[in-house]
């Protein structure tokens, strides 16, 4: 496929993101829910909160519980023995985040209140 293997392509364009020291608030209900989700794997697993491009408002929240990653560039927040990681690239978007949890049949689950967001979508998954 020599059309794209030519020498005319640039090196990858780097995105410039500002690193800020992240502070987040986790409500008691959210702490309970996160601890319950991680279970007895809190020594090896972490909760990563991140933002990715897309969604109806510009960015999408993502939360995953994974084995502690080897990659550098994460900031660590300890929440009652559970480690929450936020990547430096997302730090300016997520600094000041308030993580809550609503235990209800309709609209239940984790909720994010983000002081950096000018807007959010109705389902709460997207912000901008």
């Amino acid at each position, binding site marked *: *496929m*020599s*059309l*794209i293997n*030519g*020498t*005319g*392509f*640039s*090196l*990858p*364009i*780097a*995105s410039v*993101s500002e690193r800020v020291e992240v502070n987040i608030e986790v409500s008691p209900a959210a702490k309970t829910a996160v601890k319950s989700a991680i279970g007895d794997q809190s020594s090896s697993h972490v909760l*990563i909160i*991140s*933002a*990715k*491009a*897309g*969604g*109806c*408002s*510009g*960015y*999408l929240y*993502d939360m*995953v519980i994974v084995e502690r*990653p080897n*990659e550098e*560039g*994460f900031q660590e927040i300890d929440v009652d023995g559970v480690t929450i990681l936020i*990547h430096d*690239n*997302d730090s300016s978007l997520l600094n000041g985040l308030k993580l809550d949890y609503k235990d209800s049949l309709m609209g239940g689950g984790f909720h994010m209140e983000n002081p950096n967001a000018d*807007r959010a*979508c109705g*389902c709460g*998954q*997207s912000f*901008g």
Partner: protein
Amino acid sequence: MFPAVTRVAQIPTSITLVSGKNARDHLNRMLTTDISNDSIFTRRVSIICNLNGRITSRHLHADYGSQILLMHNETESVSLRNNLTMGIPWNEECQISSGDGAIARLVIYGPDSSDILDSIGIDPADLTSEMWVEFEDSMISKIHEGTDFCIFEMLVPVEKTSELQKSLESHGAEFGSIDSVIAIQAISGILDIAIETEGKIPFDLGLHNVVDLKKGCYPGQEIHARMESRDAINKTTSIFISKQQLPLGKLQTVTNQKLEVICSKNLDGNWINVIIHQKGMNLSKEISIISNENIISIRSV
């Protein structure tokens, strides 16, 4: 108005390469259409919109699987690349590169275009507008098949462009201007990516097939869904012919109807104009437009 001879023209095009294991996922989250199931060599047009549902960039895809080439207007390069480089998740592999100057986009059109391509070893019978087909180091597709002429599009490594053009010319193709190739595509219902559409609502341009309201969330999706559900799509785009070039931008008719000219290109002495107008406008008669205190007549093609 249809071409009497077959011509080949190179349209200046910017190139952005989205590559990596998660290139498709990252791009798909921003597009108004779902590309998750696109196969290798898919050719399609896509758009990225802002939160107000207006186009920020419009692109032609050449899909190589984990590498997707986007061809677009040079004026959209900065906003497209900014959009693409922001928000790549920590756990996804995706790089954005510029390919400006690496690939040339040629358009071959005319009554003998199929025969000329056949004579240089390309079988036009297998070509469609949905897929690219490899030809040596290049890619080709057939983007229009009419009774009088066909239009083909080729992506060629820049260093091979001159050789290919000479080969086409030696088999009977003539040099074509950028204006004429954009105009002939417009008449054929194709809005070339060279036409600036930044800031426009996709529905106003007739780009309904590039907006998938079932896809789920994308930037601008709420606006598009609201427009569609409230039957608030009031404009459309048509092609008009005039004896004078029209200035780009908003104009009014002598009956106070508002129009917006997004393209005015010369084709064999006539001007082919791509105009956004209110739906329901009477296109069967000649329309008089006020432009700089002059009256210019246009008629629908």
